[in-house]
């Protein structure tokens, strides 16, 4: 099947100093890398789960795909067409097909507009006014289980779950092919989290839309995604079908993440692999494999060079010199 989104060796870097200042301070590399050569594909109707700690570059990756941050190198192909290097006007038709859902449910809704006007925004921006706008907005609200009367409220009058559903409705307005959901469950209590995830799953069944879900909640990824990727300091350390990644993990980092996650089964044998410290700063990216500063299986080579990609088949890939399937002394 033709992939919907194909990201190839995507690299995003940010300038930390102006060119003049860098020259004066003899700083030859005044950049930090937010995303370092990431590749993945999303097929139509698929859900791709992207997991990582805070500061791992998940949101930057999403924003790069949306064309909101400049890309250093690599390719982003949507339906086979490369989006990199397109001008604002040329990018606009693609924006209709890729929608973004934000972390902060209420903060992503314009505070002085009524819900009705917020939902009309996508139509106005793309000059695609439906024949009967009020009906269309009522339909969108119903689709996310909200009453059409909510159209008259302001964002601050909604609860977190309601605001999140308005975000889903807005993302759906122009029937996009891909929805990028940045932390769709953040800041919601568990029952509402479930509601939102079920809503997204239902919409996927009904509309055939693909999701790129960005989260640090492993349960969410395990629950909804077909493909999962583990991100650390701007790189994917392991990616593949969710089942493979969760049950036959190869990277010590994946194992550490999973073991840090509480299991609902009290009888489950719990091997807790503790990793210490926190994710290194982008300003002082460790040499070699970025994870070596916290890895329990670290060896000299890890400090020197980043491992080549290894493949277990079925698109399960990982980057580790000493994967879990091999024993180390």
């Amino acid at each position, binding site marked *: 099947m033709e992939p919907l989104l194909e990201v190839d060796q995507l690299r995003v870097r940010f300038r930390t100093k102006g060119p003049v200042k860098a020259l004066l301070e003899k700083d030859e590399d005044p950049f930090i890398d937010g995303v370092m050569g990431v590749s993945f594909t999303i097929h139509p109707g698929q859900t791709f789960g992207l997991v990582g700690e805070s500061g791992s570059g998940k949101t930057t990756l999403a*924003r790069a795909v*949306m064309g*909101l941050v400049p890309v250093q190198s690599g390719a982003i192909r949507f339906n086979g067409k490369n989006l990199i290097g397109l001008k604002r006007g040329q*990018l*606009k038709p693609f*924006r*209709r097909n890729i*929608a*973004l859902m*934000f*972390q*902060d449910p209420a*903060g*992503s*809704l*314009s*505070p*002085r*507009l009524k819900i009705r006007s917020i939902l009309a*925004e*996508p139509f*106005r*921006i*793309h000059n695609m006014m439906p024949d009967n706008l009020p009906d269309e907005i009522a339909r969108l609200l119903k689709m996310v289980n909200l009453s059409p009367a909510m159209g008259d409220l302001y964002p601050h009058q909604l609860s977190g779950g309601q605001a999140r559903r308005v975000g889903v409705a*807005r993302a759906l307005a122009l029937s996009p092919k891909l929805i990028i959901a940045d932390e769709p469950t953040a800041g919601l209590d568990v029952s509402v989290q479930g509601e939102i995830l079920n809503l997204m799953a239902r919409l996927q069944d009904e509309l055939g839309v693909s999701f790129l879900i960005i989260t640090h909640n492993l349960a969410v990824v395990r629950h909804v995604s077909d493909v999962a990727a583990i991100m650390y300091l701007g790189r994917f350390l392991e990616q593949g079908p969710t089942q493979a990644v969760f049950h036959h993990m190869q990277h010590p980092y994946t194992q550490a993440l999973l073991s840090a996650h509480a299991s609902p089964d009290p009888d489950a044998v719990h091997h807790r692999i503790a990793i210490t410290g926190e994710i290194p700063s982008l300003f002082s990216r460790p040499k070699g494999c970025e994870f070596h500063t916290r890895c329990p299986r670290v060896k000299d080579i890890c400090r020197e060079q980043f491992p080549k990609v290894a493949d277990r088949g079925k698109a399960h890939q990982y980057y580790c010199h000493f994967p879990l399937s091999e024993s180390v002394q």
Partner: protein
Amino acid sequence: MNRIKEIFFRLRNEPMGIFGLVLVLLVVVCAVFAPFLVTHDPNALDIAHRLGGPSADHWMGTDQLGRDVFSRVVMGSRIAVWVALVTVSLSLGIGLVLGMMAGYGPKWLDSGLLLLFDTLRSFPTIMFALALVTVFGPSLQTVIIVIVATTFPVYGRMVRTQTQALAGNEFIVAEEAMGAGMMRVLGVHILPNIVGPLFIVASMDIPVVITIEAGLSFLGVGVRPPTPSWGAILNDGYAYIRNTPWIIIFGGIPLIVTTLGFTFLGESMRDMFDPKLRKDL
């Protein structure tokens, strides 16, 4: 509409605000109905009764050319209110447009506009006025240009800072992600979130503007005689301050009333909108 209702409702608990509002209304009514309130033609000379004291016929006396001071003060309110309205709305408009462009546009535009704001703000108002008058000659337009040029950078800087603070918010990024252009982001999403506090600053700027106009007219570089302006009346009275002080006294009272009125109103409005100072929360 609800917001306006809310403002009036809250104003009831602010005696200073009500006092300010009454003074402001007094000046505005005076300016609007000036032709019906005057007792004499404000420019009619009556040399026989020059420098006369307050009397039943001339409530505030007459000036050195025998003109009725009361009628001149009333007509002068028109100039004051007109200058205030025109300059403050022009400054607000220019400040909003340039400030939003600086705050949302590319870095080079921001630097360029900031340079413009700071350059204009660094001119002393009176010196700037004198320079412009030498070039264009004294007139009401010159006064308006001087005031607008020296006040819009203040609004511009304020708007820029507020725009920058808003531009990073998720609802703005959401708009950009949907493909909204700059006009739409600024007009529909940023503007409504910054005008509120701006209007309060504007209302507190009105007395400042009126005083600048009076000051320029007093110096003779503002409104041309014989047009009655409060500053011109003060200038007329200044020469006779020892013998006939009523001209300068009655010329000064409306300035005091206007300044107090707008300052009280503006300050209590600011207090009402500042959540930290709100008593009812």
